[in-house]
């Protein structure tokens, strides 16, 4: 029975293109905190290009090559999704395409349509989960001896408090969601709900609804790497749950620290410039 079960599992995984791309790390016993759990402290960063597009994408010129040249261009990248593609419902795929077309638009003049247009990243809004993990910016995990683990992200100074073994459901929706953690062996498993529906997954317009449920897994695989996996579930938008995975790299530069990327001032002309006295003349 056991052997047969294994064989079926291998066949199932072998059918998924993403599986063979998983980096193989030799068995690893991580350094531990006083409570016996792995020590995840440090500055980490992803080096995938999923923030441009979770799926396979070619290099692209960006929206304004006439003024930005190669500065505004995006890198090519391979999909980080198990199976390669996001299983959208047909009607949801149309919305994704519309998001992409309107990604550079912003209009905050009417309250009810405040969040209707544009990639939240362009407006310097907190990126949500899992996008915060694969933004091209580092983040720091702060793990101590309290039942809370903080993740501080450089982008927009976003933060997440992971409440360990915490029972209370999300009291309200938040841009960075409501994160509750638990240990499964050496893996930190974080259950994320209560994510504001306005967050996106990438600049390609990939999105979700208010029913988003993300389960993340952080597993130390070497002193310098965490394997990151996230299972993404949203029955209003996708036909089935889907999974992304990639390694996180420890930032090793001497004296490296999280710096500020407080991008609000970079967005004020875009968001509010048209309401200025100068513009009204």
């Amino acid at each position, binding site marked *: 029975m056991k052997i047969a079960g294994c064989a079926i599992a291998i066949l199932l995984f072998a059918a998924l293109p993403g599986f063979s791309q998983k980096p193989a790390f030799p068995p690893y016993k991580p350094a531990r905190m006083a409570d016996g759990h792995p020590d995840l402290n440090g500055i980490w960063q992803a080096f995938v290009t999923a923030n441009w597009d979770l799926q396979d994408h070619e290099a692209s010129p960006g929206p304004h090559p006439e003024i930005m040249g190669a500065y505004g261009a995006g890198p090519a990248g391979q999909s980080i999704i198990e199976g390669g593609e996001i299983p959208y419902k047909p009607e949801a795929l149309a919305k994704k395409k519309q998001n992409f077309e309107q990604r550079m638009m912003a209009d905050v003049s009417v309250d009810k349509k405040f969040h209707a247009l544009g990639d939240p990243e362009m407006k*310097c809004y907190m990126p949500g989960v899992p996008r915060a993990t694969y933004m091209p910016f580092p983040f720091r995990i*702060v793990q101590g001896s309290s039942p809370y683990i903080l993740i501080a992200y450089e982008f927009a*100074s976003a933060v997440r408090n992971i409440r360990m073994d915490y029972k209370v459901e999300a009291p309200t929706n938040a841009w960075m969601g409501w994160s509750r953690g638990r240990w499964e062996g050496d893996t930190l498993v974080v259950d994320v709900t209560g994510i504001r529906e306005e967050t996106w997954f990438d600049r390609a317009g990939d999105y979700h609804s208010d029913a988003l449920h993300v389960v993340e897994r952080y597993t130390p695989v070497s002193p310098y790497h965490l394997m990151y996996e996230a299972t993404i579930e949203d029955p209003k938008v996708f036909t089935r749950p889907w999974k992304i995975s990639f390694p996180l790299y420890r930032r090793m530069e001497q004296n490296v620290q999280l710096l500020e990327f407080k991008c609000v001032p970079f967005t004020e002309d875009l968001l509010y410039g048209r309401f200025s006295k100068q513009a009204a003349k």
Partner: protein
Amino acid sequence: MKRQLLVSFGILAAVSMAPLAGQAQKKVAAKTSAPKNVPYARTPWGDPDLQGVWNDATSTPLQRPNAVGAKDVLSDDEAAEFQDQLKNNLSRDRRDGGAEADVNRAYNEHWMDSRRLKITSDHRTSLIVDPPDGRIPPLVPLSPERQKAAALRAAANTRFNAGLPESYRDFTLPVRCIIRTDSPPYLPIIYNNDFQIFQSPGFVVINPEMIHSARIIPIDKPGEKHPHLGKNLRQWLGDSRGHWDGDTLVVETTNFRPDDGVVFMGADPETYRITERFTRVDATSLNYEFTIEDPHTWTRPWTARIPWSKIDPAEQMYEYACHEDNYDMGHFLIGARERERKGEAK
């Protein structure tokens, strides 16, 4: 004006009050070391344990009100009266300013942190403990450049208060959601006076509820120093370094950006120094003390002490998404353009 009430950030203005009766004095002995051999006192890696969610709300003003004279600490009876008067000044349920004022105050009352209406338990008359008069020291003469900058800021504030901001640049940093009370020194305001402290070996991290920024403080040890950022790398919240002085966390912050409103009271970021001290007092309290000096701004350094209380773990800190839902910016600016269109602008 409604606008001013809605954005009532900053220091509490000196309150007017009747002279207080009685002469009883209670000297405040600030405890400076954490108790030993109690479970909360140490992290597993041996540092004093500051982890938890803390609240710094109090009605005790930063500066001693003139009306209390030289008295630094009040008797129980005096303290009760002091607290009542401060509460009356801070509370919006006063019914003494007409219907429009009542409605505006009622709106603001909704946000009031109830802890904000109590004076410190040690019955001090000011948060400032040095100079002994409990007041911010006199200013030194400002350079012509800084006088000009102050005048520009004042003009922008006047336009804002008149409901006629010209652009987002006329708004202060808190209204623009760039920094709020997440920047030191931490002073109590109307709401969201919560701070969660996280620690890991070699780090203390302070996460103020408003805005969400995490202030990551590397801890220096003998033989393990973390040099400050280079002088051309300046930040809105500066660059903080800590060390343990006995059981007190001492934090020094430099590398502040030069923008107006980044450092306290328009001081000169080049010469401004802030040193903060966090000392755990008992299971539910710590002392937060800060010393500010800037020879280009004040005649001498000054120090304030604010008690922080641990809040019930069930009372969670929530996300403060300021910029993400900053409807006010558009409202103020669109309103200003509408006033101009109607010819209401002078």
